[in-house]
């Protein structure tokens, strides 16, 4: 039977336990070489998309953006399912889960904390890939018509900075491991993700021709082809020449990854990593193709049942909405967040129930 914490002290202790388990899960997960490889693959594939220009129908930016978001979803799904498998299924098999449950930790706390830790890994990955996506779109060829320039312009400075950021993060992690005996995996994973965020932030201080933005006056923006968040007059402190309309779309992808992390955590209480990954991939495909086979289905049919049970992943994949200047309304993001929270709650409840009766030998 699932029992809630009974006292305020109990609640505080439960929160401390959850934080400890989640923190350990996060540290262990990003320490794994495969987690770093997944992040590197996603970031580098995203950053390389503006380098290899397959076509140029004035949609280079869109190609880079869509590639980045696709990497975010697919690699994020693999990362979530793999991390859940290692930190739940493998821990049950290895005995570290039993060691934790042997302490005053309820099984519900354990499952929820594991999900929190896995979601933490996914969120860190998401930050890195989102920044790489914004940078890749900025670096891809844009057609500009300026006073002294007309034609396609790329942004080699930012692109080089992005790759340099990755290389520096890996080098710093290696140096920290060699001289300070710090964990390479943790330093490299966090470093690669944060390096992209840092490059994205720094790139807001120069335009795609490498000219620094003066920190005052709207007129100073004349050489810039991107979108600016500058004041109407007076001090201009920052010019993010990044397509920030991608942010709500990426947030929707993060919601989808949260659902997959919850689903993978629930499955990992009973299944091994491979099986959990296969089920997650199936749910992704069926969720994306949901409209195709549930159209016109009655509530009592198998197709109707599937439509009701499976999370509709299409709600979280709105790349096309930001094409040609489009925007995703924040109200839609909020509604999708509530839908994702509901899906997560259902998956985690199922996971807690499945884990409650599980023998930990």
């Amino acid at each position: 039977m699932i029992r809630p914490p009974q006292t305020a002290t109990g609640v505080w202790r439960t929160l401390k336990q959850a934080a400890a388990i989640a923190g350990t899960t996060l540290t262990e997960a990003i320490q794994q070489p495969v987690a770093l490889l997944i992040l590197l693959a996603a970031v580098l594939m995203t950053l390389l998309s503006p380098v290899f220009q397959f076509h140029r129908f004035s949609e280079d930016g869109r190609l880079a953006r869509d590639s980045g978001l696709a990497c975010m979803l697919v690699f994020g799904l693999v990362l979530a399912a793999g991390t859940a498998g290692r930190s739940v299924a493998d821990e049950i098999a290895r005995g570290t889960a039993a060691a934790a449950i042997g302490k005053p930790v309820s099984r519900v706390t354990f499952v929820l904390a594991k999900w929190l830790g896995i979601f933490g890994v996914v969120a860190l990955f998401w930050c890195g890939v989102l920044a790489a996506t914004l940078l890749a779109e900025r670096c891809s060829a844009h057609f500009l018509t300026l006073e002294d320039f007309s034609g396609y312009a790329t942004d080699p400075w930012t692109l080089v900075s992005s790759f340099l950021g990755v290389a520096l993060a890996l080098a710093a992690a290696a140096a920290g491991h060699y001289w300070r005996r710090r964990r390479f995996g943790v330093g490299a994973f966090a470093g690669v993700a944060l390096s992209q965020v840092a490059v994205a932030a720094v790139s807001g201080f120069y335009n795609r021709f490498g000219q620094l933005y003066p920190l005052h006056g709207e007129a100073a923006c004349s050489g810039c082809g991107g979108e600016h968040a500058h004041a109407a007059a007076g001090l201009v402190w920052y010019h993010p020449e990044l397509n920030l309309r991608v942010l709500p779309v990426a947030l929707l992808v993060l919601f989808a990854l949260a659902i997959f992390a919850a689903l993978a955590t629930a499955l990992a209480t009973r299944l091994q990593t491979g099986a959990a990954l296969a089920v997650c991939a199936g749910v992704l495909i069926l969720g994306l193709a949901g409209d195709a086979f549930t159209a016109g289905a009655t509530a009592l049919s198998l197709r109707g049942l599937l439509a009701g049970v499976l999370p509709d992943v299409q709600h979280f994949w709105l790349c096309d909405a930001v094409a040609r200047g489009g925007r995703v309304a924040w109200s839609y993001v909020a509604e999708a967040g509530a839908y994702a929270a509901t899906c997560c709650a259902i998956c985690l409840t199922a996971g807690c129930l499945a884990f409650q009766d599980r023998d930990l030998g």
Partner: protein
Amino acid sequence: MESAKVIETLGLRKTFRDFWRRPVVEAVKGLDFSVRQGEVFGLLGPNGSGKSTTIKMLLGLLHPTAGEIRVLGAAPSDTRVKARIGYLPEVSHLHPFLTPRETLMYYASLFGMSHGVAARRTAELLTMVDLAHAADRAVGRFSKGMARRVGVAQALVNAPELLILDEPTSGLDPLGCREVKDLVRLLARNGVTVLMTSHLLADVEDVCDRVAILDRGVLRAEGQIADLLRKPDAVRFLVEGLSEEEASALRRELEARAGCRVQQDFPAMSLEAFFLQVVAQDGRLRTFEMAPFLQAEHVPGKGPA
């Protein structure tokens, strides 16, 4: 007056089942036993006798098929009860990328300890298990014996009232074994109840007050070690300083008086005692010191048994 029962099982059964819920093996078959406060109780038995299964049921890790368990007066799944138990599993299940310091801090935080208390206890325990020098190395690279020491330390991080040790000396060298046995004796003297399993019968004999012997899930014998091992119709004399001829003459005299055969031998020290004596010569045998927070005067409500 009899001390209170810390562990009590009644008709305990455990049947493991396969994916289709078909019974595969009945590991424990109607086990009844109890452990009283302050005693050191040994659970013995060959491989597959149900010792570890019983321990895991006592900790709420396995669900009994039938029967009843009371641990510290409550069901084993009760987290308030688990807060008073220390558990050392058969294999020290540790997170390989964490250091011993991080491992102990992690387990301390599972008991809801503040950072300051957890850090102090961690430092004391690392000194106690002689791992202070390796406190910041990943445990994944430790030898089995060193990992075992981390396991012993994590079992004590909450200053438990009940300590459950599954094969505590497994993987330890003779020095480590001696230290664990010293630890168990010291803890028992401080009022801690200890339940331990071991394949090494000499270890159990050294530290346990009472034992139960399991075989294929059934309790075969239970009682005080002294009572179980005593030969009621035999007497042994230990005489020092006799030559071989004098000893033989004495034996013949005794045989003539008692009218039965008298066995004569020359007692030797155990190999463990000899090993420790040899090792002590180069000063490697350290004096075992229990962590201050585990000592009776530092634990409210806990005193010598």
